[in-house]
């Protein structure tokens, strides 16, 4: 496309080429640089370099599976200018439903169990997402309060469905044949998460769905005046986020052959952190899937690495906090002029 320009305007640059330039200069580079630095540091310090050992790499990958799925869900929603605090509760409810289905289908063999519980988890997640979407669009409640309310409601429902205790007696085959199974050495949960990430990356960058999502986040009035049916699209987005949380719930129960209804309270916040570190703006309009991956890896490296090299837990908290600040401030140095506002107006 070499369009000759009237006068001296510089239209020679085809759209795609300058996009590559844009990627390089944005902050994903910095996040991965820090990830690599930490890997080198932890490997050198850990006893006979176990940090980089096969088993620990598998630890890192299986630890990051659920975080990545929730990260994709929150990155989509943040990109469209919305929030979701109910992802953790959605994960719990989905894992409870998956667990109960797995127990019920146990006699029919591991294949049926896996499919049944996966489908059950996804449907539960979609339903929670749908209710989130309807509260936000039909009842006009801002998505922080709507999903916070759903956090309580979904947790309550999970406790009622599970009778207030973790679902036990889940067929261990679910764990052996899926949760801790590896494909070419890569844990299955991580494979699923990376697949979902790849689809999300392509959808965001090249599809109409991604464009409309970013338009709604960049300026909701502009998207509405361009004729986008924002309500319908938001409900779809919340359902996608819910479905991803459902898959994460399924993975959770396959990894541990048990639900963990008392945990997952910080899942939404960690997903938001990974997305924001990766360059996704809280105010919407700008999402970086590659940056999200870097953010999730950073979180997992720190959680695992600091234990492997034996840092005591109190100091772990401090080290993680300091590295978070360094990671984001280093990235800002480059963008000297444009101050990145939390809620860019």
């Amino acid at each position, binding site marked *: 496309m070499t369009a000759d320009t009237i006068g001296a305007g510089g239209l020679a640059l085809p759209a795609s080429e300058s996009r590559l330039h844009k990627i390089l200069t944005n902050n994903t580079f910095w996040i991965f640089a820090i990830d690599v630095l930490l890997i080198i540091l932890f490997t050198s310090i850990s006893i006979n370099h*176990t940090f980089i050992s096969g088993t620990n790499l598998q630890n890192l990958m299986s630890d990051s599976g659920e975080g990545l799925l929730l990260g994709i869900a929150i990155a989509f929603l943040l990109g469209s200018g919305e929030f979701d605090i109910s992802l953790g509760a959605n994960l719990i409810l989905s894992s409870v439903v998956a667990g109960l289905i797995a127990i019920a289908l146990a006699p029919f063999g591991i294949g049926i169990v896996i499919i049944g519980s996966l489908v059950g988890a996804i449907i539960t997640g979609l339903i929670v997402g749908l209710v989130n979407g309807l509260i936000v669009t039909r009842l006009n409640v801002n998505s922080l309060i709507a999903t916070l309310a759903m956090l309580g409601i979904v947790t309550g429902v999970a406790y009622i469905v599970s009778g207030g205790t973790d679902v036990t007696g889940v067929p261990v085959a679910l764990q052996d044949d899926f949760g801790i199974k590896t494909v070419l050495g890569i844990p299955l949960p991580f494979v699923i998460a990376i697949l979902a990430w790849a689809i999300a990356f392509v959808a965001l960058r090249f599809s109409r769905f991604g464009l409309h999502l970013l338009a709604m986040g960049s300026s909701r009035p502009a998207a509405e005046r361009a004729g986008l049916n924002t309500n319908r699209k938001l409900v779809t987005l919340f359902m996608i986020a819910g479905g991803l949380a459902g898959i994460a719930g399924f993975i959770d129960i396959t990894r541990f052959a048990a639900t*963990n209804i008392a945990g997952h309270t910080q899942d939404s916040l960690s997903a938001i952190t990974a997305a924001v570190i990766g360059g996704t703006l809280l105010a919407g309009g700008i999402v970086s899937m590659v940056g999200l991956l870097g953010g999730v890896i950073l979180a997992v490296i720190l959680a*695992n690495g600091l*234990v*492997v090299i034996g840092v005591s*837990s109190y100091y772990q908290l401090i080290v993680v906090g300091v590295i978070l600040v360094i990671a984001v401030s280093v990235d800002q140095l480059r963008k000297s002029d444009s101050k990145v506002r939390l809620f860019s107006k």
Partner: protein
Amino acid sequence: SSTGSADTSGSSDKKLRIVAIAALINDSFFITGKCGAQDAAKAGGATLQFQGPTSNSATAEIQAFAAAAATNPDGMLIAPFSNTGFGATVRPLMKKGIPVWATGQSLEPADAYGTTITDFLEASKPLEALIGKITGGKGTVGLIADTTGNKTDSDRYTEMVPALEKKYPDLKVLSPQFAQNSTSMASTAAAALIQGNPDMKVIYATSGPEAVGVASAIKAAGVGDTVKLVSFDSSPQQIDLIKSGQLAATVGQSPYEGSKIAVEQVLKYLKAHKGSTKQVPATATITATPTFLLTPENVTTAKALKYQYMTKCD
């Protein structure tokens, strides 16, 4: 914390390295357990590392346990937050000849080399009797617990409540209010329970922070003489409450003993199977650790001291 000796691959004279993972490292129950494990390790000529999450999240504990396992220690102790979910990491370790001992909570399924845990049914018997005495079998009993789904916490009332209801038919035991380790939430719930149930006689708090919250609520409401507080665990705050008469009684566990036995058994096994990478036999048998009902009367006796948790190991 000391990182273990460089090479642990089975050579006999090398110091053995044991890693202990706790459910909540800022809780006096687990600090006391650490002291027991450290003393036993020192006595057995081994080194001990102590790790664990700072918020009670099972996922965080499982991840910490997996990370520590990856450093191939000689033996491991686990104080699981919930008894499920650790199998995937424990079983491979046991297969590689690394004994794993569970303290404070049993593993489900029983994959560990051994388990030292309080016999909660036994421990709640004196508490049942006390509640019967205080209420005379009538009135209402309130229950403030930590979180649903945390077996270490729910074991403290899931067996006792049915026993109480069977023994005292017209005693009303309320369903638990969950305070998630937060003193202020426990105080809010207790104050409301007192308000909502005029015939409230006893409130049972299942752990330290909850007990402190309920004591404050009772004091603020000025109902100290009609509403008695009983609790589980004996954190220093709970001992202060007993001494000041705000806490009628509390069940002291012996985490020091539990972890000491665990380390001793692990070292015994390692010394007996030097350098072997044979599968370590798992067992479901439980070594029960004793408990003691601390009351204002006996709290200062020598025996009672053994059941009071420490905050430092010196």
